């Protein structure tokens, strides 16, 4: 290798090194955020007490940490990771910076599934039935988009338009059901749309983890194809990517991740849109790094938002779906103002 090429190689390696560092830093920040979250709560334990209760049975505190705080925080991190990851995948396959897990109507479909169960099957907030309803409708909406993409073309425009049409359809159906429902049912529905982490238990965490962490390696293995897709379908095709199949499998995988993220907790908006953009601004658009770091940034956002939501009006808890926007929007504006160039 010539000297110039050697320099180039080193510079690329150095940049990749910086990105790896950001990845490690994000993991570290998330860990810190989770520990801080563990220490915040109505029963007022210090760091030492919390750590002691984590490791050995200290009676009441042990119960609070293991049954209330830890599951809540792990759920927050998982959901945030899923939404951040799904957001970056949707943006990549749809080639659209406005895409998020909710752009294709996935959120509305899930909401409609939850509403249907609450109205017609008795509901009871956050039971498995509501989750199953949300989950099934999410998959149904993904299937609908795929069906249209199969029949017409799998272009990003077709998919986005189908998704938006679907979003309106499910929103209307949800409104109709709310209109028909009783006061209590409507209250429950509204609460679902706020999102809530308060009833996350270990079994729910297990299921969520499966839905989010199983598709993750597959999506990560497609990182290079996502990079190529950014320069257009034609270029990607000419470089050996089966664009149609990539788009379809990725939409299914990302929908599954989204469903996993929201079926037990309700709609936590904004994270899926903003986490990928925050990440892009910091490390650029290489999906090898973008996918995992978006997930970590999403996790951090939700964990921090949840901690704030529990402490601002303690002992009142502000629903997570509301706080994420309060935390995310100012930060997002800040980055938007600060950035030097159009990065998408």
């Amino acid at each position, binding site marked *: *290798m*010539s000297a*110039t*090429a*050697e*320099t*180039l*190689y080193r*510079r*690329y*390696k150095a*940049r990749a090194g910086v990105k790896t560092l950001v990845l490690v830093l994000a993991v570290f920040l998330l860990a810190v955020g989770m520990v801080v979250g563990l220490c915040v709560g109505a029963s007022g334990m210090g760091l030492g007490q919390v750590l002691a209760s984590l490791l050995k049975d200290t009676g009441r505190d042990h119960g609070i940490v293991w049954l209330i705080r830890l599951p809540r925080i792990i759920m927050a991190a998982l959901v945030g990771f899923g939404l951040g990851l799904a957001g970056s995948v949707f*943006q*990549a396959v749809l*080639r*659209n*910076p406005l895409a998020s897990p909710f752009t294709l109507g996935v959120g509305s479909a899930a909401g409609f599934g939850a509403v249907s169960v609450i109205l017609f099957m008795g509901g009871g907030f956050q039971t498995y039935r509501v989750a199953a309803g949300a989950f099934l409708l999410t998959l149904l909406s993904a299937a609908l988009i795929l069906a249209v993409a199969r029949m017409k073309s799998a272009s990003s425009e077709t998919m986005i338009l189908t998704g938006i049409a679907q979003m309106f359809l499910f929103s209307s159906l949800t409104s109709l059901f709310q209109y028909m429902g009783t006061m209590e049912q409507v209250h429950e529905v509204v609460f679902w749309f706020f999102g809530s982490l308060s009833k996350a238990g270990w079994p729910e965490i297990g299921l969520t983890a499966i839905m989010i962490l199983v598709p993750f390696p597959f999506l990560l*293995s497609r990182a*290079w*194809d996502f*990079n*190529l897709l*950014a*320069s*257009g*379908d*034609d*270029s990607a*095709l*000419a*470089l*050996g*990517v*089966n664009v149609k199949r990539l788009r379809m499998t990725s939409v299914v995988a990302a929908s599954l991740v989204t469903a996993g993220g929201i079926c037990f907790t309700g709609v936590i908006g904004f994270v899926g849109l903003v986490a990928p953009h925050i990440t*892009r601004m910091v490390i*650029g*658009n*290489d999906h*090898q790094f973008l996918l995992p770091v978006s997930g970590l940034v999403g996790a951090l956002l939700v964990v921090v938002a949840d901690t704030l939501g529990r402490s601002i009006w303690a002992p009142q808890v502000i629903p997570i779906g509301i706080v994420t926007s309060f935390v995310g929007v100012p930060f997002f504006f800040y980055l938007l103002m600060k950035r030097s*160039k*159009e*990065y*998408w």
Partner: protein
Amino acid sequence: MLEVTHLHFDYGGVRVLEDIGAGVDKGLVLSVVGPNGAGKTTLLKCIVRILQPTAGSVRIDDRETRRMSRRELARHLGYVPQNTPARFSATVFETVLSGRRPYIAWRPSRTDLERTAGVIEEMNLADLAMRDMDRLSGGQAQKVLLARALAQDAHYLLLDEPTSSLDLRHQLEMLEIIAALVKDKRMGAVMAMHDLNLAARFSDVILMLHQGRTFRWGTPLEVITPENIREVYGVEAAVRRENGYLHIQPLRCADPPASGKSPGPPQPNPGGSRS
């Protein structure tokens, strides 16, 4: 030898390409010329299988490309599209590196990175390597796209109007680079071209398309004649030979012929191409 035989392409029931036959050997440049909508871009896209030909075959060294996987095909054919801005911008290095995709399994190997660095140096893009693509001029961006195709280590280059958005100097520079690659590395090149002067000067063979059919096929001297230009483009032109080059001087629009065999309106052009 890259060879196209009896290639047909229909788009939405409309015949866009009909019975096209052409070929190019390593070390030669084939230019595809013709007015807007004649099917230049479509032909290129059919060869790289961005579009699926309705009938006919494309062979590389006597192997049917139909039987190759996309990945394998990408090791033979390097496609240089017209420069369109990417959605989420990558750096020059990352863009050239993406040409290694046909060889990358999970993540780029050291070889991939070294090859990328080598191509960037070869193309004199080292100063721009860490810059974002959307910060480049049209000429620079076009060069990067060519570099990406070189990183593919393909034997044939397919270039869709490589000079379309470039100024005079960059047009010549681009074509000189291509000519040098073809000669030094024994690559074959197929270019869709608008500019007849440049096409005549830089091509060994010219395929002139007219309404999706092969109109003429031969050396620049045989194909680029006032008669053919009048028939295909509907333009009166003077063609002179000077300093060893053909000079084509468009004079005026030809009077539309009274009857049937007119150059007709441009045909619909599929695949979003703007040829």
